[in-house]
């Protein structure tokens, strides 16, 4: 009789780890942000492609749509979108740099610096969205 070894499925719990940066360090938070924003942006891309299809409906259809896009609720969504883009973009710079083996020893510093840049750009964009 060999020592019985049974495999216990940890699938769901393991998957949850993708989105849970608690008790983890900066790099893991970056990973979670990258994954969440990445998934969000893909969904947005597909929606966006459908929405701009409205251009085929000519000026009436499009301009009416543009008008509804200026409600405050949509503007908030815009800011969330911009946040997602900025986080994903700047984090992507980090992943590219350290992913090629450069600056690995200061990866946490790079992350927080880029996130600070993201915050500044987001503040500026938010101001643009709500004032213009």
């Amino acid at each position, binding site marked *: 009789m060999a020592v019985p070894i049974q495999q216990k499925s940890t699938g769901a719990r393991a998957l949850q780890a993708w989105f849970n940066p608690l008790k983890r360090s900066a790099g893991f938070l970056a990973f979670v942000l990258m994954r969440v924003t990445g998934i969000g942006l893909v969904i947005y*891309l597909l929606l966006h492609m459908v929405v*701009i299809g409205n251009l085929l409906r000519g*000026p009436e259809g499009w301009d009416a749509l*543009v008008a509804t896009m200026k409600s405050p609720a949509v503007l908030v969504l815009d800011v969330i979108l911009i946040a997602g883009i900025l986080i994903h973009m700047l984090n992507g710079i980090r992943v590219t740099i350290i992913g090629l083996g450069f600056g690995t020893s200061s990866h946490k510093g790079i992350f927080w610096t880029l996130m600070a840049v993201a915050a500044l750009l987001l503040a500026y964009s938010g101001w643009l969205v709500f004032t213009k």
Partner: protein
Amino acid sequence: MRTASIEEKRRSGVWVWQAITGVLLVILLSLHMIVHHFVVEGGLRTYQQVLDYVGNPLVVAVEILFLVTVTYHAMLGVRAILFDLNLSESQKALVTRVLTVLGVVVVAWGVFLALALFRAANA
């Protein structure tokens, strides 16, 4: 445990393409955001403003480049996430095929849209 031998596993360097398209997107997406939203009064182009803009063949070329890049990057990203799951080699092949089809559809639709607007602008 799944036991795909190393010989079976395809050599892979798509991560590098993900990085290259990523860097391109930093430029193209920034450009896209600026010309379509930030420099535009009110944040969104009206129909006429859109036509004025895409009438330029260079703009159409850049928009199509952006579309191809962003779609490729997005599909590779989804593939990377799905490959983090415990997929068999045949499941991986299926994922790649489905995402390729989806990517081609998105690009085709986008190109069709761009050309339609280009024609409308120059009619």
